């Protein structure tokens, strides 16, 4: 029973992990930018949802939709105004600039939101229900469903819509994008915007499960990394699956070795996946 409950915890948490990594995988796969500021954007999204929830009383799940629009704008501007300037320079430079962005966003968040803990705490936050003798926390279950839904929406966008086809074409070949009649600069900005909107959604869900502080970004970036690598960069569902694998692995590690070993397991998985199957994770290009 304990094992079943722990597996369930891992799966539910893994869905959220997957959503965190989804935006990073998209941006990485299409734009070839390894975004070290991804966790900071998740954090920012969490605060946006928090403030919408606190000031308007809007239900947090509805607030997430609003926050996604706002975060899309943030991401669009970041890419269009800044990252487009360096997108063709060496990989190292994109790593450095996003690291710098992470530092700046974290500082500004602390300045604007203070270091106080924030929690998105709707009246039903602690609600749970029982199924097959297991306790299912309501919010986590809802977060899991949202994560799957967003992955499905992203899949649909990338595979069934002209915009998505253009985005995918861009990841293969920059010139190809022009064939779709879209300015690649706009296309890049839109792609980064979508990635940021997904980060925003993940942040909102995170804020309902754990506290928001300006400093959660770094560890979320690391986690997103691990999952993006394990899940691969091309198929949204695989990314979610990657999240679930990490979620389960961490939960089991806690059960059998102790909670201090969960990082050993997830980082170990990352290195292992890279070393054992480097080709699988290479982007389609």
């Amino acid at each position, binding site marked *: *029973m304990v094992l079943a409950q722990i597996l369930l915890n891992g799966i539910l948490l893994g869905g959220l992990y997957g959503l965190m990594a989804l935006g990073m995988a998209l941006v990485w796969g299409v734009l070839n930018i390894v975004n070290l500021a991804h966790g900071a954007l998740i954090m920012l999204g969490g605060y946006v949802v928090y403030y919408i929830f606190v000031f308007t009383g809007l239900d947090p799940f509805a607030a997430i939709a609003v926050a996604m629009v706002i975060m899309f704008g943030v991401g669009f501007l970041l890419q269009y105004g800044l990252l487009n300037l360096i997108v063709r320079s060496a990989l190292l430079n994109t790593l450095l600039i996003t690291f710098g962005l992470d530092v700046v966003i974290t500082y500004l968040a602390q300045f604007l939101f203070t270091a106080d803990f924030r929690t998105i705490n709707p009246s039903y936050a*602690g609600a749970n229900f029982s199924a097959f003798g297991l306790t299912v926390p309501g919010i986590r279950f809802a977060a899991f469903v949202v994560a799957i839904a967003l992955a499905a929406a992203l899949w649909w966008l990338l595979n069934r819509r002209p915009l998505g086809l253009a985005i995918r074409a861009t990841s293969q070949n920059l010139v190809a994008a022009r064939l779709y009649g879209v300015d690649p600069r706009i296309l890049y900005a839109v792609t980064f915007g979508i990635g940021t909107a997904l980060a925003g959604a993940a942040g909102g869900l995170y804020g309902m499960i754990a506290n928001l502080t300006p400093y959660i970004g770094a560890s979320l970036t690391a986690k997103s990394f691990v999952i993006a690598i394990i899940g691969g960069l091309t198929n949204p569902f695989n990314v979610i699956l990657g999240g679930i694998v990490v979620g389960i692995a961490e939960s089991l590690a806690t059960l059998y070795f102790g909670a201090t070993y969960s990082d050993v397991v997830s980082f170990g998985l990352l290195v292992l996946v890279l070393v054992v199957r480097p080709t699988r994770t290479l982007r389609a290009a």
Partner: protein
Amino acid sequence: MKNSIVALAAAAAFASSVGLARADNVITLGASVQLTGSSANTGRYYRDAYGLTIAKINEAGGIKVGGKTYKLALKILDNQSDVNLSVRQYVQLITSDKVNFLLGPFASNFALSDSSIAEKYQIPMVQGGGASTQIYTRHYKYIFGTLPAADDYYASTIEMFGKLQPKPETVALVAADDSFDVSVAKGTRERLKAAHMKIAVDATYREGNSDFSSILTQIKAANVDAILWSGHETEALNFIRQMKSLNVNPKDYYGFTVGVPTEDFRKALGKDANYAFGMTSWLPSATLKDRWFGDALGFAKAYKAKFGYDPDYHAASGAADVETFAVALEKAGSLNPKAVRDAIAKINFSSLYALHTKYGENGQIILPQIVVQIQDGKLVPIYSDQFLNKPQYPVPPWNKRG
């Protein structure tokens, strides 16, 4: 290459020019505190308490040392929650800012590193932010602390268990893996054993962890009577929220080392904060007489009026650090670091923080933890060495609460 020399020279010049313009009737206390970064939330208590206490002492005319009157001044630097930077800043405070004495940073790991600087330069440091026993087992001579030993944090709680009906028999012990919390867990294990209680779950988690679902599932399965928890405030909040969402109900009791006494904790959790037990080494009471603030209540009032939020034991402990210097300086009658150090080792005075503000052989204060509980959104003292108020006990399960 030329650039580097220029840069080095420039850095040295800058560093020496920032030294305070010192009047000869001012005693400067220096500190490097977490004003930004992950610990800024608690760091502010120290900044504010240091500033307020120094201002209050100066208002009262300063202090008399060897027949001469001095004002106190504070030089505070922001270590950005970075241990390495804080170490460098303490060296800067001593060697270029020429502060006279040192106040401490927040948190055990900082105090651990920073106290080495105090010892190296033989400048007394009184710190109110680190409770880990590790700080005091190195036989350092120049480090004093106003937080009681981490090992003893659950001493009063476990003593209280013996007087409660029903008495908890099985316990889940959950602790973070940093210096302070490992000390707490170690001390608690020994005390539980001595009290013949069974530790059914003994979990250590990684500092900064935000997901407790696996640990909580194990606790639920073990069906324990009490949970004793030790970690950081943000983790405590996550733990309680996840306790509720996973419907984990210890039969009698759940208690935390940190968080419960703070205003933030109650604000963040709303009514889910109710029934949580905690502890504090300090409560604002009129019995704690103080030379400058009248009593602890006066301190709490002045603090709230000036900064807009309630002080907790961190703040009181920081204020006691400043007062320790004031009292010890007057007693020593000299600014000589060695003389002041010896005076600190011998003092015993009533402050807003402790009836007997005095330091043990190793430099650490001895002070019992007062068990507290949140009842109806209010912080209520429950037990010190006897019951102060009636606890709401046993704690009702989540689904039986109004």
